[in-house]
């Protein structure tokens, strides 16, 4: 950074730019550390039931009678009224695309050739705008749009383990447009 002072403004603090080349050419010394941070999250009653039902091929929600709300993913308490939720209720495995992206990025920000289709699906039977994130499949990227009706494609029963990935993806629900 230039040391000269720009008229009318304070002198900004410096910093030394390091380029990837400087690391490759060993122009700088650095340390390396891999944290050993491992967790086993307790699921709690709401998530446990949700995942158990996914394993059985069903989507389940919770109702809040006070707020007249059907919540999915289910919770044991309602954040609107701050009371405990009331009943379990099975929902359909169909829904509406609320939003989506066509991603050319993997989790480490590497570019990939075949895009991942991902989005938020509001689930039929839950309150409006209530749903979760998932993949889309059996469609071309250019066919994906907001408002489209979709249906879950489940993994075969023996491959399901009790995870959101027990649903492979959501596919277009033919003849079910909004």
């Amino acid at each position: 950074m230039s040391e000269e002072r720009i008229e009318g403004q304070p002198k900004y603090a410096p910093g030394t730019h390091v380029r990837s080349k400087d690391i490759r050419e060993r122009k700088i010394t650095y340390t390396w550390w891999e944290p050993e941070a491992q967790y086993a999250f307790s699921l709690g009653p709401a998530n446990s039931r949700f995942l158990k039902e996914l394993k059985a091929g069903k989507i389940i929600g919770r109702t809040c009678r006070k707020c007249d709300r059907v919540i999915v993913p289910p919770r044991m308490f309602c954040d609107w009224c701050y009371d405990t939720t009331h009943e379990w209720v099975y929902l359909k495995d169909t829904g509406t695309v609320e939003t989506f992206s066509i991603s050319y990025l993997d989790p480490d920000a590497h570019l990939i050739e075949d895009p991942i289709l991902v989005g938020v699906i509001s689930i039929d039977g839950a309150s409006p705008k209530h749903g979760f994130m998932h993949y889309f499949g059996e469609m071309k990227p250019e066919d994906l749009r907001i408002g489209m009706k979709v249906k879950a494609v489940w993994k075969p029963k023996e491959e399901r383990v009790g995870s959101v990935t027990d649903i492979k993806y959501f596919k277009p629900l033919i003849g079910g447009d909004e």
Partner: protein
Amino acid sequence: MRNVSVIGGGMSLFRRRLKETGKELSFLASKMAMEEAGVQRSDIDMVVMGSAPDAFDGIHMKGENLLDGAGGKDKPYVRVFNGGGTGVFAPIAGWWHVASGVADMVMVVCEEKMGSCNPHPQTAFRNIWDPILDRPLNPNLVWLFAMEMNRYMTRYDIKKEDIARVAVKNKRNAVGHPCAQLPDANITVEDVLNSEMMAWPVNRLDISPPSDGASALIYCSEEKAKEFTDDPINVAGVGWNIDSSMWTNRDLYFPDYVANAAKMAYKMAGINDPRKEIDFAEPYDPFTYKELHHLEGLLLCDKGEAPILTREGVTERDGDLPVCPSGGLLGVGNPIAATMGQKVCELYWQLAGKAGKRQIPGDPQVGVGQAWGDIMQMGTVLVMRRG
């Protein structure tokens, strides 16, 4: 409630990787702020640190590690954190230290060292997702913003060109900023639209770059500020607000939490008509569309109107409502919490007439800065006013 004045700001160079450690960056920014204010470390009663995920710097309880660089040794020192909102939240926390009467002079230091994280800072973002519902899908951070941007564009039928104009404006504005990482005087809308597709609708130039950097700010009570200046710059209003963690349970087209935070800050500042009473804004712009989304959240225009104002040049530095005159995150860089340099220090430098080449014409009196954080749920707003 005591009036709180700003008497100094500091900001280091922003780059993808800097040689300096997090402590050293904190030191450099703090030193600049203390020099500008004309105070010593011994004058400072308490220190507030703002820094985002520990996973960037690669240190657990990183606030503790940074504290000597930030001038916090043997002082009451505390770190506050709400993801990307921290850059404006740390100065809000600094404000309550002085406004409460507990401290007379407080230094706020914000630091981020994203370059430490391998293979890419985005790797650290893997763990910002819900471990049960989202992480099994192996998501990338950019998905979130792509999904929010899509929802916003679809709702108001916004063209990608109008969103790309934000990158052009901010990268051009950044040309006058000595710390800027990606200033570009010649960038065009086509450059943005033709840059690599990351996650539709987000192209590479829609995204602000990850950076290393630090910034600092010195507050004191208004009475004490009179020892330093005849023309104090005061914090007029603060607001912060968080929405539910369950971002898939709400419509993403409008940031209600930003609007709530803005209303809180405007109420405190006695601002009834923000469009008329606010002279310039520094909304959070980690992505192009976020500047527009946030202008609407800040109630500086109608819903869906921000792209139109941008197209008409209203938000240029010499427009009616200059927006991101600093160059924002898109032009200057995005070391998460350290963007206090653009979002809050810039308000001070503009109001004090110290912004050099970036100075807004016409003697601005009131500015608003805003940041946005967590998982599309946190709004932090600070209004600054002359005298």
